[in-house]
């Protein structure tokens, strides 16, 4: 900073503490005058951070002239919880409990990206059991459905279409029931762990999932009937939130936004992970570059996800769900007891009664954790919102040295200004809804 000097609005005065400058508001008069001269239609509106149509605590700062938005900016950070910093003070396995809470609508994607990164650092990608990988894919695709359903439901509600909202949350509820059956929790599962999964499917889960796929197949066409051809819906969505391919590439937008500009870029196809190259599914695109195109893509992706879920169910074979290496695998198996889910009594009997070594091993792995060789890795997955990636750095310790999440909502939200400026205030809502930002992921 340069040393202070005298200006017409800052006059110096010597005191015992040194020179004090008194800054007076002479220039404020000019500001007020020019504001008075300007068009009195021009106002700045703060939308949010507490506003029902901004998807959580997103603050939009809109400069509007009449009904037209001349400038739009985002204020974010209201949901910053320091997850990346916190990860550095927990062991590698505990990390999943944090990352699952980032973008809370795509928990399984966060967990998978993180675990793929850790497994890459450990060099055990090829040792992950097939069953664990298949179940990861299955959970991720169900998660894609539930995330898109929330997007369509809340997006509809923001347009005033409450029926879509009710339908969307009704179907999401069915998927959350399936999560609850498999992981014990409706959200924030921490189910995917470095090396595999926390536990295997419970009895009856496959039948439940097949029934769920059938129900969803029946319910999905209702969104088409309600919205796809609906003239009011189309009038609100078409040509709103326009972002073409060049804009997407420059702003780093991925996911449905990029595909609505016509580029069939999907990491499941272009940089496959978890064996996606062996599944049959289509990558839908649109060429309208607008909110309506993104809506159609999300609808079609839900159908494709159901196809992948079915293929997973067909391929499931009994087997382990955790890597065989006892230096990494979590030692305890979970079991359902009278007081809820906990360590299995057989395991406790073994470590407390019969095997001293098993007890030591359990204690070391649970309190200290495993060590990860020094280095860095980047693992990316195609989340419902776009490229979700974890940059994981290890210094050879039992805790992550640094974990950075490239959250697609964070990057895509930058496109808000490009989509909204020059449009109507009411269209801002539609454009933001079509980005589908989740502040938990944006702010982390």
């Amino acid at each position: 900073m340069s040393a202070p000097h005298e200006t017409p609005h800052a006059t110096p005065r010597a005191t015992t503490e040194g020179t004090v400058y008194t800054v007076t508001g002479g220039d404020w008069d000019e500001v007020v005058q020019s504001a008075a001269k300007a068009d009195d239609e021009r106002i700045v509106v703060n939308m949010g951070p507490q506003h029902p149509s901004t998807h959580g605590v997103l603050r939009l700062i809109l400069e509007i002239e009449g009904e037209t938005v001349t400038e739009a900016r985002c204020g974010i950070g209201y949901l910053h919880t320091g997850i990346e910093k916190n990860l550095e003070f927990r062991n590698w396995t505990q990390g999943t409990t944090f990352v699952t809470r980032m973008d809370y609508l795509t928990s399984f994607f966060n967990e998978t990206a993180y675990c793929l990164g850790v497994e890459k650092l450990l060099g055990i990608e090829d040792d992950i059991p097939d069953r664990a990988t298949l179940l990861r894919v299955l959970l991720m695709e169900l998660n894609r459905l539930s995330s898109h359903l929330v997007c369509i439901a809340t997006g509809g509600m923001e347009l005033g279409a409450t029926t879509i909202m009710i339908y969307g949350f009704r179907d999401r509820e069915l998927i959350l029931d399936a999560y609850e059956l498999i992981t014990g929790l409706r959200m924030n599962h921490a189910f995917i762990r470095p090396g595999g999964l926390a536990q295997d499917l419970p009895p009856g889960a496959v039948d439940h999932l097949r029934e769920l796929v059938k129900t969803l197949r029946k319910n999905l066409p209702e969104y088409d009937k309600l919205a796809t051809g609906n003239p009011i819906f189309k009038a609100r969505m078409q040509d709103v939130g326009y972002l073409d391919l060049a804009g997407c590439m420059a702003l780093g937008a991925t996911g449905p936004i990029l595909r609505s500009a016509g580029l069939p870029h999907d990491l499941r196809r272009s940089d496959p992970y978890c064996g996606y190259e062996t599944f049959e599914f289509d990558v839908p695109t649109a060429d309208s570059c607008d909110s309506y195109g993104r809506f159609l893509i999300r609808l079609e992706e839900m159908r494709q996800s159901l196809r992948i879920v079915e293929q997973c169910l067909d391929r499931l074979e009994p087997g382990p769900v955790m890597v065989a290496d006892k230096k990494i695998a979590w030692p305890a198996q979970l079991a359902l007891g009278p007081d809820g889910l906990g360590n299995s009594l057989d395991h406790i009997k073994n470590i407390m009664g019969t095997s001293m070594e098993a007890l030591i091993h359990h204690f070391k792995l649970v309190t200290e954790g495993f060590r990860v060789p020094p280095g860095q890795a980047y693992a990316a997955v195609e989340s419902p919102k776009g490229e979700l990636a974890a940059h994981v750095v290890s210094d050879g310790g039992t805790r992550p040295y640094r974990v950075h999440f490239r959250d697609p909502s964070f990057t895509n939200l930058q496109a808000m200004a490009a989509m909204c400026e020059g449009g109507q205030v009411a269209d801002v809502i539609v454009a933001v809804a079509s980005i589908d930002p989740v502040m938990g992921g944006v702010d982390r």
Partner: protein
Amino acid sequence: MTDEQRSGNNVPSPRDDTGEVIGVRKGMFGANNGGDTSGYGGLVRTVTMPGASARPYGGPGGVFDEIADELEGALEEQGLVPGNAIVKTVVDRGELTFHIAREHLVQVARTLRDDPALRFELCTGVSGVHFPGDQGRELHAVYHLRSLTHGRLIRLEVTAPDADPHVPSLVAVYPTNDWHERETYDFFGLIFEGHPALTRIMMPDDWQGFPQRKDYPLGGIAVEYKGAQIPAPDQRRSYS
């Protein structure tokens, strides 16, 4: 696992240096305030990140060599000595990393984006890493670039000392880095030279300090649970 076994498993190609020392680890079991009766108290191990690789770099179908050749050739065409811009090339765990001298970062990124044989159109942002033990290179900025045309992924790494935390901004080349650079500035204090509006993005505007630096404490308070005091997470025993 011994160090020899470990390097035998994980190193895809021979290295000609042993890597950057980022720290020294002493003792074991986190008993660093005396009273270590485990017999491991005198253990001293240096922590090194994977070092520079020698050719061939490998990769699927030798693609890493192809990328390195194209990049070095393109830089030479622009009258730049590749060895000056690319400090070292690291191949580790199937990923290719170019360590770039910070003064050449923008030119290298522009070349990577525009050269038809390279065409890394998509930057997935910047991630900061703070290595207080890496003398003179404490702050690292890590960029991941994806080529949709060729289906490739590479990493660029730039370092800056704590005393002069400046790195050129890539916003002019990849506008998507706008918020990412603001985030890295906010958390690490890395100043991206040439960024259009480098302000805090997550933390409040008047926040003091840079929270993701290693010398910035996590904070927290002890919690009483069933009569015992459980210390704050950063006060608990760490085993590394």
